[in-house]
């Protein structure tokens, strides 16, 4: 398959940026702009999944963990900011006299919060990834372990009602780093920050994909042992991709909080983590735009169909997984190329063969 020139993709990012940052605020109502902002947050996490899974072959089924790190860091700061000098309302409800939990204290500082949003996922993913990849844990084991972590974290948050708000989560934020969140102008600003971060993440993976690192990552995905015999350590390559994807999930989570106004364990648990994967699979795991656009589409489905017709939406989501993975393992973004290939050589080249071969894994 011929690769498109990198500059064409860069142009694509430019068009995408103009659409998100200039056109959308002009044509969309406040309500829809807020929704698009929410989809942008999922898309940021999805871009990271595209890097780790699509290019790196690591099926990260627990990105909710890192999404939660960013989201809860931000939510704790905003809760404290809204509460002022007092103890947050939901804590008073459960135990009026107890002091603020220790780990909340540093989140009073805006600088610490921003640092935590970046450093917490990097450190956690770094330790976890180093431990797992150096021991050559991969494939299904890796996927199940990450999913187990997401389940564990969601359970932990649900059960610590006084410290984290439990199942009701954290909500009722009034200020965002000093700005009143109810003000439409500030809402627009928050949206622009989220959309801008999405464009930045796309630029980052665009650069990573065309770098030597990107080639090494794809090589590790397709033939890990061969990469090892060539003298590279695949663990390091995978570790970097995993850490970057964790960071993106955290950023997505952090922006999710001021835009949506609430964070609960349901947004980060196993089901939410799978939903993040769904968008990436749907859009095209290994492509540049596929994960972001797929996540936005799934986000749209989730928040519109998911609330008006929840039964149907679950069926659609489930069947989408089956049909897309079975017939279009590279997602919708591979559709044009496959149609073109089928049209060019209708006889000698059956269309599915090259795509399947590309993603084939060696059975151990």
């Amino acid at each position, binding site marked *: 398959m011929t690769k498109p020139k990198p500059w064409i993709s860069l142009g694509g990012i430019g068009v995408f940026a103009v659409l998100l940052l200039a056109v959308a605020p002009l044509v969309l109502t406040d309500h829809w702009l807020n929704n698009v902002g929410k989809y942008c947050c999922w898309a940021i996490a999805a871009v990271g999944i595209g890097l780790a899974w699509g290019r790196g072959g690591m*099926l990260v089924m627990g990105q909710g963990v890192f999404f939660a790190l960013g989201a809860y860091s931000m939510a704790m700061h905003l809760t404290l900011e809204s509460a002022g000098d007092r103890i947050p309302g939901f804590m008073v409800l459960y135990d009026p006299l107890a002091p603020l939990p220790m780990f909340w204290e540093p989140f009073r500082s805006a600088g610490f919060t921003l640092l935590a949003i970046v450093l917490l996922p990097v450190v956690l993913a770094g330790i976890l990834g180093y431990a797992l990849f150096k*021991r050559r844990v991969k494939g*299904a084991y890796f996927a*199940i372990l990450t999913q187990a972590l997401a389940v564990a*974290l969601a359970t932990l948050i649900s059960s610590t009602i006084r410290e984290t708000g439990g199942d009701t989560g954290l909500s009722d934020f009034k200020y965002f780093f000093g700005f009143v969140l109810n003000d439409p102008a500030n809402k627009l600003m928050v949206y622009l920050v989220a959309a801008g971060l999405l464009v930045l993440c796309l630029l980052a993976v665009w650069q990573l994909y065309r770098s030597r690192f990107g080639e090494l990552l794809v090589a590790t995905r397709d033939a890990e042992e061969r990469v090892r015999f060539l003298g590279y350590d695949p663990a390091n390559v995978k570790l970097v991709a995993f850490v970057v994807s964790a960071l993106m999930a955290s950023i997505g989570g952090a922006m999710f909080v001021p835009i949506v106004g609430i964070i609960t364990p349901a947004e980060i648990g196993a089901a939410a983590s799978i939903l993040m994967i769904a968008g990436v699979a749907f859009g095209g795991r290994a492509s540049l735009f596929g994960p972001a656009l797929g996540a936005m589409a799934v986000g749209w489905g989730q928040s519109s169909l998911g609330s008006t017709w929840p039964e149907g939406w679950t069926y659609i989501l*489930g069947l989408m*997984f089956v049909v897309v993975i*079975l017939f279009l393992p590279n997602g919708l973004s591979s559709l044009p190329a496959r149609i073109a290939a089928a049209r060019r050589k209708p006889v000698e080249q059956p269309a599915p063969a090259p795509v399947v071969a590309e993603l084939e*894994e060696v*059975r151990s």
Partner: protein
Amino acid sequence: MDALIAPLLNGSAQGALLLLAALGLSLTFGQMGVINMAHGEFLMLGAFAAYLVQQVVTATDLSIPVALPVAFVVAGLFGLLLEITVIQWMYRRPLDTLLVTVGVSLVLQQAALQIFPSQGVPVEKPGWLDGQLTVLGYGWPLRQLFTILLATVCVAALSAWLRYTSFGRRIRATVHNRDLAETSGISTRTVDRLTFFTGSGLAGVAGVAASLIGGTNSQMGAQYIIPAFLVVAAGGIGQLKGTIIAAWAVGVALSFFAYWTTGSLAQVLAFILVIVFLQLRPQGLFTVRTRSLA
């Protein structure tokens, strides 16, 4: 003494339930390399089958023994259907079977939610499971003992089947060397289907046991699938004895953690324990030595 005996016995029963849930997985995941996330929903199907059997066979003393084979066949047939329609095209992409079956599990969960009441259905416990057995002063519920017995019977039957029957030999041959098995005249397609049928059917049996201990609802499969996978992974691929030990250890650990802390914290701690264990032994408790690099 009571502080030690109670969690130990409860944990053993919990481990037996985990073992039942993981047994089918150790067949399909361990032997065939298929990662079936819908396995939990097959378990759910078994539990609902038990409920439906009770609507027909009203004598509760009799209904559970009848439900066990029915649940096995129902879940097994669903598994067979899944293998024929989807999985057979994906043997070369094991990681993708995981995602496809996630989709299947979403559909099955939603279907169960719509067919049955959302709060779940009651599965009546037969009278002969009501009593208690006094062990060193602790009244041990008989249904926990029943779970352990059921798990023992299933493990014994499965290992005897794998070891002594001709189908068992064919399964082992296919696992060890698919190409050689095929050349020796074994229909690996038939073997795959039969293995998947059996693995899924075992999930159905586990579902009946689970319906006697916890609630029967559309979400019950989701809570078993991750622990069951962790048990199979910690036990080592394709190793029944590893799965047995791992299931028992996880069950007892869960029970002790729950005794010392709370139920949800216990789950978190048990997960972390398994993850740390896999860090020390990435191949699980027992490994089949191969010369493959992976």
